[in-house]
């Protein structure tokens, strides 16, 4: 084990909630200081769906995601290296996080086979057999140059049970060590290990404890949000945060629904990502505190309000629901307009959460949030349970 070095990547806890496990922190990365809890929008191919760099700046977005599988294929690590990394290639000056590429291999590709060496898959482009090893994943991620890289993990579907889950957990730990060793730019780029262990409490706990022995800047909780029961999901989340070091950030992968964000912040998570806000925008759906507005719906054809009168985004400042209704199905500009709003919504939600934690009013925020989202008080059972576990009783 390497001696614990002083990290460029430092977490400063500003305030913690006196009721729940929530906290608000400053996470210093090479390209920006990120305020947590944070939602990170997903810019799969090195662009956030139709948004200019200045628009992201104006939304105060400080960190976004790129996907290693996609970027590794196009434009490819050689070009990214020649360009001086993804930051320079896309003109983005703030922080980036990349995944390992493994998840896409397993979820998008047929015939992916996992061996101790890595993930073997058939190239969708020329049909040849290719191998993504932990070393290869880090090599590509080093070329991309994101502030935070993800270890290659052995991904199993969240509903899988039995010995395969345990095998994946142990392999994930072995692959972490290979990833850490392969990192050529540890001063500029850190690696987050990923807590695996499926829906098995013992395995998750064991995994978290084992990963914690490595000198890393933060941890991710993976293998969830894949269609498992929510009552099991939140228990795995809270168990993971219980066993991860307090002074390091915890990133819950693939979570981005507003309700999930509020609950999981209460359970002690600091970082989130999800394609949902940008993907749903493309179908004309706008996020609001009461849920979702499907702007394609005829009800909006004579609705001359903005999407959300409390929202300060450029879309809500200029456009009505009625006008967006005329555009959503046929002009690309509508996609950009709703995307701007949805990203603004996610970032503002996190800002409101952070402010309430700073003032130690987070439980009150949770209460108001839930009564707005569920005016008939038909709260999801799992959320009631999860919040109860951190001393918040939804009324």
């Amino acid at each position, binding site marked *: 084990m390497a001696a614990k070095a002083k990290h460029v990547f430092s977490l400063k806890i500003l305030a913690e909630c006196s009721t729940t496990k929530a906290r608000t922190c400053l996470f210093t990365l090479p390209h920006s200081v990120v305020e947590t809890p944070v939602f990170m929008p997903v810019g799969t*191919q*090195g*662009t956030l*769906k*139709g*948004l*200019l*760099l*200045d*628009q992201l700046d104006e939304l105060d977005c400080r960190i976004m995601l790129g996907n290693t599988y*996609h970027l590794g294929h*196009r*434009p490819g690590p050689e*070009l990214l290296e*020649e*360009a001086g990394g993804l930051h320079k*290639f*896309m*003109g983005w000056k703030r922080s980036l996080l990349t995944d390992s590429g493994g998840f896409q291999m397993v979820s998008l590709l047929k015939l992916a086979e996992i061996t101790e060496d890595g993930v073997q898959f058939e190239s969708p482009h020329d049909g040849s057999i290719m191998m993504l090893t932990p070393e290869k994943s880090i090599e590509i991620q080093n070329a991309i140059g994101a502030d935070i890289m993800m270890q290659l993990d052995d991904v199993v579907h969240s509903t899988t049970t039995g010995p395969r889950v345990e095998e994946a957990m142990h392999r994930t730990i072995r692959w972490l060590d290979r990833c850490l060793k392969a990192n050529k730019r540890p001063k500029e780029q850190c690696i987050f290990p990923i807590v695996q262990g499926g829906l098995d409490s013992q395995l998750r706990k064991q995994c978290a404890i084992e990963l914690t022995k490595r000198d890393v800047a933060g941890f991710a909780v993976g293998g969830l949000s894949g269609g498992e029961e929510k009552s099991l999901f939140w228990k795995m989340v809270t168990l993971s945060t219980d066993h991860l070091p307090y002074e390091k950030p915890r990133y819950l992968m693939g979570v981005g629904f507003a309700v999930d964000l509020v609950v999981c912040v209460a359970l002690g998570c600091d970082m989130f990502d999800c394609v949902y806000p940008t993907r749903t925008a493309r179908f004309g759906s706008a996020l609001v505190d009461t849920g979702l507005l499907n702007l394609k719906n005829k009800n909006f*054809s*004579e609705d*001359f309000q903005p999407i959300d009168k409390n929202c300060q985004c*450029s*879309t809500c400042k*200029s*456009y*009505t629901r*009625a*006008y967006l*209704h*005329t*555009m959503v*199905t*046929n*002009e*690309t*500009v509508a*996609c*950009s*307009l709703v995307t*701007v709003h949805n990203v603004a919504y996610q970032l503002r939600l996190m800002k409101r959460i952070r402010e309430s934690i700073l003032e130690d009013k987070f439980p009150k925020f949770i209460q108001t949030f839930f009564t707005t989202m569920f005016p008939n008080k038909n709260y999801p059972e799992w959320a009631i349970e999860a919040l109860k576990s951190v001393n918040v009783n939804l009324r």
Partner: protein
Amino acid sequence: MMKFVLKNVKNGYRAGVISELGNQPDKTVDTPFCMLYTRGGSAPHLSRDVLNRLKNLPLVAHMPLNILADHHEAVRKFQHGIGKFAAMEDRVVYCSLHDPSTLVKSGYNDKHGVSVWGKGGKLKLDTELFMKIQESFQPDIYQALSDGDTDINSTRKRCIKVVDRTLSFLDSILDIHNKSERLKKTAIFGSIVGGYNEAERVRCVKETVSRPVQGFVIEGFFNPGPDTEHFQINECVNLLQKIIEILPVDKPRLMQSIWPPDAVIQAYELGIDIFDSSYPYVVTERSSALVFTYIIPTEETEGEELPETYEINLTDKKYFADFSPLLKDCKCYTCENYTRSYVNHLLNTKELLASILLMIHNFHHYFEFFESLRRSISDGKLEDLKKLINKPKKLPSVER
């Protein structure tokens, strides 16, 4: 009511100022100019927030009716007109009948009305519906309903018919317009039709001129649509000259087409004052960036190499690792922040941002070209600009 004052007529070239426009009475616009092309009320691919990052944005927004007409009930209930409805309230709105880049099929007009093609298919506009839409939209200027469905092959009989109809539409429109409270500040441009028949063209001009219209739209030489980019104005130059000769000099003339820069200069020389900007949109849709030079060389820059084509196609693999801007020294947002290589990547991955970045650049380039056109007129250097514009070939060959 709209005013047009000529300020410079040299060798038959004209430059003027339009003022007192409907909802923007304090602003003026210099001719010749191009309008801001829109689809469904917005600049293609560009939200208001993005559009406002462009310098030299035209004051007049061009809103073809075909896409918007479907929504006139909602705009009527909104009550504040199409400009504000589409978040374009800081522009002057001109409503044309057709979109210059959308093909208008021949044979769908009759004495009761004219067909336009929107997203939901064909929409038949009679004068009553047409005026109901104008009263809802409250544009600053609109083109009178017209039957411009003629081309070089149209018969004399057909040419007589389109003139008869268009004049009859105009009378019904004026009747409703003059009684309308909501259109009090709105100007009408009369449509000059008649195909390639000189007698009918002359009749149309004389009759239209005798009615209270504030400007003229010249159409009926070709059907709107993608092919107009290759229309050779030489085909109708004599007739166009004849029309312009008998049009009053103190009213602006507008002509819609996909206008490459050489055609703009040619049409301007014949006497056209107002153009549309569908050309940069069409260029964007084929993944290209405009690179033609419109800056007249000074002694210092004389002899610098000119681009070989009007545009470069960014899907070409030669731009894969080209980290220079779309166009060297271009001051647009795209060129100041992004590279050819990045745009090539966005096109390869079919990302929406590609169209946005190309549209910003192409609009910027085209609007700057018009600025240069006006400057060259006032400086007496139009011939120099023409030499620059006529040199390059139009389209590049592309290797993917």
